[in-house]
């Protein structure tokens, strides 16, 4: 069923009785060419691009809960490609280009809104690093723009320019950055994959891998055994747990990132704003809530909830840069479990077990990567070689020393 304004009009006249389910609820088949473990954003986009780009449709996506129940449904919805390192930036720029055409591609309005992202800087050192980053973005075909304090004062007069503890010296804009409606991204990919024949199996938890002679043969699930030629794991937040079923230890720790939203407000913020001297980033959703977040809580956890100190730290950051939000009320908080990797960058790679693939370690940047992650994972699954923009996202990079450490904080996951 194709969505359109006309269709909405016709349905509106006839009591909206004709809308079909966005996806089927099939039973598992005994065997698939590819089984994707994890029905979150990355798993669903992988399935979508496998079907669409590579014509592979004998594919199942296995989701232990409801589709989109992972981090795709609990993030701050920011999209951007303002990375610095060659191992990352071209990948995220590919993602940005896929975002830019996502709605037309999937026939689903995921509300990709390129209202810009701004990273503020407060010191000369930060400025220099942002210039380096901005130029790296250009070299990878992305856009970037530096703004000085005077320009920011014009564009964002509500920032604290007068009384700031850490005066704002300027900022790095990526005008093409912005936000998307997170759930709708999952739904759009799910609907697109489903309509092309991919089976999305909800409430289907993987409980084990069938591995014979170093080769994966299928998976055990709460809905029975499923054979597969290839198994692609894509379960951010649960990566260590799931891969331990295949006997693997990963360079990943699980941490919780809290996010927050205020009560709905009339238009307040034009785009995404990120504080450079504290932990705070914020945007405004189409519904009017200020969606914001900060740092991870910092301790290993699988509980999707955090604690007060981080809530306060984030609010302090917010009040420090935009003291006009003092009377906005925090309405809801939530927590997502992040795969924090050892250098802050992800993995899209084969494992040492034939036919078993791994995608994870997205830290708290997985949402923006959703299209490219699926695209590149699908490429790897279909062709057995990494996509050109994802060649460095390898599991063995800590053995060789080819780190992708944007923040430069080393092998301490909670600092990335």
């Amino acid at each position, binding site marked *: 069923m194709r969505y*359109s304004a006309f269709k*909405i009009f016709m349905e*509106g006249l006839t009591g*909206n009785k004709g809308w079909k389910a*966005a996806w089927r609820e099939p039973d598992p088949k005994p065997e698939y060419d590819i089984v994707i473990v994890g029905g979150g954003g990355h798993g669903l986009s992988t399935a979508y691009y496998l079907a669409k780009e590579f014509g592979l449709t004998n594919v199942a996506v296995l989701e232990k809960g*409801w589709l*989109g129940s992972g981090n795709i*449904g609990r993030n701050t919805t920011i999209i951007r490609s303002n990375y610095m390192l*060659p191992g990352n930036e071209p990948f995220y720029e590919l993602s940005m280009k896929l975002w830019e055409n996502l709605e037309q591609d999937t026939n689903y*309005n*995921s509300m990709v*809104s390129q209202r810009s992202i701004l990273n503020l800087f407060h*010191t000369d050192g930060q*400025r*220099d690093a942002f*210039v380096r980053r*901005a*130029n790296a973005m250009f*070299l990878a075909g992305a856009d970037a*723009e*530096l703004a000085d304090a005077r320009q920011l004062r014009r564009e964002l007069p509500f920032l*604290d320019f007068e009384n*700031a*503890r850490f005066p704002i010296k300027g900022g790095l804009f990526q005008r093409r950055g912005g936000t998307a409606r997170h*759930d709708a991204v999952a739904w759009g990919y799910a609907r697109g994959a489903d309509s092309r024949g991919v089976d999305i199996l*909800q409430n289907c938890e993987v409980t084990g891998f069938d591995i014979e002679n170093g080769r994966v043969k299928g998976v055990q699930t709460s809905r029975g055994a499923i054979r597969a030629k290839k198994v692609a794991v894509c379960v951010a937040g649960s990566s260590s747990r799931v891969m331990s079923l295949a006997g693997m230890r990963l360079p990943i720790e699980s941490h919780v990132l809290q996010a927050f939203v205020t*009560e*709905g*407000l009339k*238009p*307040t913020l034009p785009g995404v704003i990120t504080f450079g001297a504290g932990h705070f980033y914020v945007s*405004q959703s189409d*519904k009017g809530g200020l969606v914001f977040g900060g740092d991870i809580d910092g301790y290993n956890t699988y*509980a*999707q*909830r955090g604690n007060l100190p981080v*809530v*306060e730290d*984030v*609010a*302090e950051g917010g*009040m*420090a840069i935009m*003291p*006009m939000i*003092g*009377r*906005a*009320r*925090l309405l*809801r*908080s*939530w927590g997502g479990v992040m795969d924090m990797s050892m250098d802050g960058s992800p993995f899209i790679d084969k494992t040492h077990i034939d036919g078993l693939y791994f995608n994870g370690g997205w830290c708290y940047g997985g949402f923006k990567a959703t299209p490219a992650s699926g695209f590149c994972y699908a490429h790897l699954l279909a062709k057995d070689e990494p996509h050109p923009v994802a060649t460095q996202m390898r599991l063995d990079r800590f*053995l*060789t*020393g080819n*780190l992708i*450490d944007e923040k*430069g904080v*080393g092998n301490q996951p909670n600092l990335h």
Partner: protein
Amino acid sequence: MSQQNRIEGGLVNRAKPLKFSFNGKAMQGYEGDTLASALLANGQRLVGRSFKYHRPRGIFTAGSEEPNALVHLRTAAHGEPNTRATMAELFDGLKAKSQNHRGSLEHDLMAVTDFLSPFLSAGFYYKTFMWPKSFWEKVYEPAIRAAAGLGALSMKEDPDTYDKGFLHCDLLVIGAGPAGLAAALAGGRAGARVILADEDFLPGGRLNAETLEVDGMPGAVWAAQAMAELASMDNVRILTRTTVYGAYDHGIYGALERCTDHLADAGGKPRQVLWRIYSKRAVLAAGSTERPIAFGNNDRPGVMLAGAVRAYANRFGVAPGREVAVFTNNDDGWRTAADLVAKGVDVRAVVDCRDAEPPVSLPGVRHVRGAAVVNTVGRKGLKAITLTNGTTIPVDCLAVSGGWNPNVHLTCHQRGRPEWRDDLNAFVPGGVLPVGMAVAGAANGSMTLSAALAEGRAQAEGQIEALGFTPAKAEAPKAADEPRLAAAFWYVKESTKRAWLDLQNDVTVKDVKLSYQEGFRSVEHLKRYTTLGMATDQGKTANIPALAIMAECTGKTIPETGTTIFRPPYTPVPMGALAGRSRGKDFRPYRLTPSHKWAEANGASFVTVGNWLRAEWYTREGEKGWRDSVDREAKMTRESVGICDVTTLGKIDIKGRDAGAFLDKVYSNTFSTLAVGKVRYGLMLREDGICYDDGTTARLGENHYVMTTTTANAVLVFRRLEFARQCLWPDMDVHLISTTDGWAQFAVAGPKSRDLLRKVVDKEFDLSNEAFPFMACGEITVCGGMPARLFRISFSGELAYEIAVPARYGNSMMGVLVEAGKEFDAVPYGTEALGVMRIEKGHATANELNGQTTAHNIGLGKMVSQKKECIGQVLSQRPEMIREDAIRLMGFRPVDRSKKLIAGSHLITKGEEANMENDQGWMTSVAYSPNLGHSIGLGFIKRGHERKGEIVRAVSPVHGSEMEVEIVSAHFIDPEGERLRG
């Protein structure tokens, strides 16, 4: 309008009338009113517009669950959007206005959306607004955003102050209703430290809203007596106007006290205080929330929850209507009818969906059995209701009771799941509660007054007994059991008109059914697809009925269908309160250098370096811009002598028999062999082999070293050293203590530095090159016996020293050094000149040692000893980190010397296209060198050490700039180091 709906009785203080205004209309209420009760007293039924369809809405509840009556309170920068009128305490001069309408509240132009609603069903926006592509950001989204949102921020800095605090108790009692009061009394009488918190300004909970009796007296009177007893106990702390909004790990609760929101003026005191309550045990007595029944046009102003109608009549002395009907599925609804009748209000009918005898007999009130309200009339205020039996009854207020939901929210904040109880048709707290929490009263499904009183006491006693207290013997308060039978009846199937579930977000029964139809069947999908429960009230009244309807669609039970997870906060918390004092200049502490005052008095401008403020340069008369000052400072230092406060560098006193051996482990190079009285440069790696920090470490005694760290890493290095000391080499006798703040340390640099120092250092200390050569150090005295430390080290590359005195003498010392240097034209210099000189000398600092740099990259690969154990040594040898073609730190100068280099430029080999594949490196730091007369830079470039003399392109597309630069040695000045040894 003068309180035409005010009736007899209630707990308001009629001796204290208060003036207020709504939408500019002057009104009057009484002390003890909420804005909502006062608006109702004045006959103001229409108070706002809904989120999506801009439907006219009135006051729906009498508590914090209010979905409709959100107003903009106060004015200008004090303006507070989305304030629940039901929670806003009335004060004299209060100004409120309605929100979310274009044009007046009565004639909202946006109400057109209501007529388009067939096309705006749940999730419609996912299916359209995609063509043409560019229209989303330009047309559709701005329109949606302008229509969405509710209230507006003033966009001005919040003028109020906020504070935070920490409280500790044995027993935290959340809620001062009957169960909470009983719990607090039990705890308090036993001598436990009790905190009793309640969101209302009048403790008592439903006792204030009902006509029930305790111990033979009106409930409100009993509550007041209980409060008086609690207030007399030293071990009980009462927090009214305080919402416990979150249950966090290990018995920590977040609470918001609204200290001055009920006053016209905060009087200079914090508006609100955010409390972190550390409880050993807690009793949650948060009561319950009534839920509505969904039927056609059930959202009209005048349709209210039955318990709220009762609260307005009993507590506030306000009749929400003149002609009232009750629609109920349970016995409790009948109480509303009975109470109103007792107050002399005209009750036209009680419509009970149950075909059963009434629980009370109300002569003269029409009882419609086994019927339901199917529709209502009256767009801006209820005029009549239509029943399933076809009857129409003219009323201006309909009190709806769909049963009560225990307020289980806090029990779920640590992801506990509530459990369904069929007898209550409601979720009650599940088996897994936050550590230390017990639940009592209606929050626990104990829905009668007598049960609440008994359970409150019992739970509190259980809690404090576990802590070793003995409960006091006291008479249990007595109350009757009120009738509580109820039917599971969620919505009126016969209604063909839209029936609202989530009043604020405009989610209807049809939307839930559509959600099911389109495959969004999990409760989380339902919520996300329809926006149910996502409004400011978090679906407190909406979620359960919607869940029941989804359960009906799927053919599952309600508990099988699930419940959404409750997360903090219970009610919204202002950002200002969460931030407390940490805003503006108080966002983080300031650290000031010892010579700060001197610098302020001598033309310094300051730069933030972490939490430090450092002088960045000292402006002299006649200097037109910062460059003039910096050039002068850098030049004069190299020509004569300059003085810079370098106290901010971290200083760690390291003592112990194993101090030297310890330093060998934490530094990549060796320190145990350093002679007493000598200083050595040290490079510290992370365990992953990346450069972490560097600095000089001096050996002042056999067992005594002083380590210097970079300013930024002082705390982090200390932490790592403690890790090494305690966790890696626990048997080393080594002791660490920071002395960063203890010593005011000054760099005295330049050819005349020795001459200058000879004037302040006491004569017995020989400063000659022979007696005190480069890299010497020692404990000396200055200015006639003042203890000091002297280090002959140089960051500038000149003959230079660092001299330290106890910090309290630092300000004075700066003055003395400058004074003593007058004859040499000594200059104080700031961080900018320091930066210029270090670039001239090729020293790597934070821009180079950015956490991605190996020793190999900065040409210090050989410094990483492979002969002794040290942190980072093994992983630093990984193949990709010691590649021959790795980036190397080099110097750069523009081929056209008049050009200004740009830090952050990328370096591209001549003749190649500027793209990521051809990226050779980047410029890390640049400066104008007044000593060389042109711009210079440091940067990393692949195989840089083999490329000296090569011309490459430095591109900065973000500036639209490109220039040719020459790769040179990073040591622009005195590459052989003759000056610093001189």
